[in-house]
């Protein structure tokens, strides 16, 4: 476990590590171009096809209730593609170089209650800069789960497996509320010295605007447009959102909370070098293997290590890079954490269970 960290590379080795990974990034960046544009264009097309057929299909449910099942699955697939492979990656700015008028990190808005700008502030900045640093990366356990001995045990941790399942079910609301929770917008005492670029008022406004639109879309406008079958359509939309929530939370938990994913202390990371940052990204993340369709459904977060090393590289390129990254990690004696999806997820559950107890 993280107590037995392997020998940390010295400053010189870290410098060489940074140089090698930078070199890898530069070579890959030089090949960016038409292939990425085509990939994104096709992806968005198929995502829209899923959404459209799913929503139109729901209309036909009067014909047989069994119709609901494939249509809900299609709609869930559309939402998963929109959130993971398109939204997450576009909002990271991976495709900004294409200069697409809407598919860019500043304009894109996704099919989830979390406001894109708010997510960028907590995820792109906090999580990607301070990955797995205790007390600085609020994505580590989301302030609800205890996943390391560095956090004090409290009574509520003993039922944290149930908390996890609940968080998973309402995952989109968890993400939407994440920044507001950090700023103690509704509850709790303001933390002294916590800096925010946006006021509480702006946070609240963005939260309620996005939540209102999402709720209106799935539970009011679309059901009303399908009036005679409004209730099944509403339920279908609810089911699609639920499936998406479960899937995204499962994938994301496999990224940083597997048994082997290491944590860091703030003092280890003060004024850290680029090499140490890379080193921390590799140790704090974990991959899982699978066929191409699985990678796409996870938004290539199955290549979490590559994603954390090169967050602004188009994600569909990660699987091809992973062998080289693994080689480099091995050369510097840094553990490269990967395994099958099932095995990695099992270790996540084990970890949540293990730290439920003091």
């Amino acid at each position: 476990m993280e107590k037995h960290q392997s020998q940390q590379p010295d400053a010189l080795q870290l410098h060489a590590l940074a140089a090698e990974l930078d070199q890898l990034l530069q070579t890959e960046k030089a090949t960016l171009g038409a292939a990425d544009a085509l990939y994104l264009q096709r992806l968005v097309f198929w995502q829209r096809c899923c959404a459209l057929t799913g929503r139109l299909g729901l209309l036909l449910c009067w014909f047989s209730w069994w119709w609901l099942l494939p249509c809900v699955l299609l709609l869930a697939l559309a939402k998963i593609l929109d959130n993971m492979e398109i939204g997450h990656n576009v909002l990271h700015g991976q495709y900004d170089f294409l200069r697409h008028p809407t598919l860019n990190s500043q304009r894109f808005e996704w099919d989830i209650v979390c406001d894109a700008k708010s997510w960028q502030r907590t995820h792109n900045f906090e999580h990607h800069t301070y990955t797995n640093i205790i007390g600085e990366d609020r994505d580590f356990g989301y302030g609800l789960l205890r996943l390391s001995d560095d956090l004090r045990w409290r009574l509520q941790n003993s039922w944290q497996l149930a908390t996890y399942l609940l968080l998973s079910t309402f995952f989109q609301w968890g993400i939407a509320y994440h920044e507001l929770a950090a700023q103690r917008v509704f509850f709790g005492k303001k933390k002294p010295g916590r800096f925010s670029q946006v006021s509480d008022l702006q946070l609240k406004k963005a939260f309620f605007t996005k939540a209102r639109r999402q709720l209106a879309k799935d539970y009011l406008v679309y059901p009303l447009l399908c009036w005679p079958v409004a209730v099944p359509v509403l339920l279908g939309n609810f089911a699609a959102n639920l499936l998406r929530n479960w899937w995204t939370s499962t994938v994301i938990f496999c990224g940083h909370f597997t048994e082997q994913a290491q944590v860091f202390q703030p003092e280890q990371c003060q004024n850290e070098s680029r090499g140490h940052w890379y080193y921390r990204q590799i140790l704090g993340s974990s991959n899982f293997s699978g066929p191409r369709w699985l990678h796409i459904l996870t938004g290539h977060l199955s290549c979490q290590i590559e994603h954390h090393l090169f967050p602004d590289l188009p994600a569909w390129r990660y699987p091809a890079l992973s062998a080289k990254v693994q080689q480099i990690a091995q050369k510097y004696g840094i553990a490269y954490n990967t395994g099958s999806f099932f095995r990695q997820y099992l270790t996540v559950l084990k970890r949540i269970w293990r730290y439920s107890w003091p």
Partner: protein
Amino acid sequence: MPAIFQTIYQELCQTLFRQSGFIAAAEPFLRKLIPAHRAGLYRARILSITPQAGCLRLRLKVSRLFPAFVAGQHLQLFVELNGRLLERTFSICSDVQGLSEQHELELAVQIQPKGRFTGALPGTLRPGMYVHLSRPVGDFCFMSQQPACLIGAGSGVTPLFSMLSSISRLTQPLTFIYSFRGKERLLFAAEWAALQAKSPLLQLVLWDSARQGRLTPERLLGELKPDLQAHFYLCGPRQFTADFSRALLNTGVAEAAIRSESFGVVAPSAGETQPVSLQLGQHSYQLGGHGSLLQRAEQTGVTVPYGCRRGVCMQCLCEKTSGVVRNLLTGELSDAGSGRIQLCISEAVSPVKVQSVEISA
């Protein structure tokens, strides 16, 4: 009332599609049917490409929906180069009748062989291909009621040529002075004689500076003696228009009677601190200090959004409208036109203009 419908429509599109409009939402499907479709832009088919005087003259067929323009206006030309949609600003050089009657436009694109955009055009563009255009904009427009004097240098002649050829019948005397360097740099070489023959009131001066020497304000006033009561239209490199407007003002020409438009790339100069202007919403700031653009903004006391400060999180992404910046991570120089840059890893190497791209929900 229409404003209310507009608001409802926009809110509905935001709610259902998270897009500004239905067309933008349907774009992935439209692009399957019409591959050249781009939401928010006008597509134009290339009819012919003629290299002339270091420029590419692009004759374009646009759709009926393309808005009318006033001679002298410019637009943005968008070309997809290796997947990237890049754009630059060019003046329309054809007449307004060509658009209204045949739905045709012409642009004269000056080729900079090392330019990232124009340098790639000769190898990319083919007749029959589609490019994209913004709507025409600009207030460098011709008023035909007064006697006028049009002075253009180099490719600055393009909007003036559009003005001249758009005049159906000249009722006031008009002086047209075009300075170019050498016969091989003469734009519209085949058209000048016909234009002169059409209007006896036109005094056309084709000034070959390779043969006659540089056209300076002194030589203009001394040798060409333009009517100082006329309205002046100047177009050329920044230095050219600045020199001429100063000289004209000094001879007593009213400020309102001088209109000018200039262009030009400022050569990157290393070492000294370059002026940077930053536009955030309504406010505009001149940045002092030194270091990255983000550091300079902060040293000036301007609050800009930022995150990681190491080029990862895209929080400080801004739209650069002009100027050259160096990427502090890679040492790479940007091109001089517009583009997105991250303030935290960009350093100005020429005068730079940036603006925020944050859009309120």
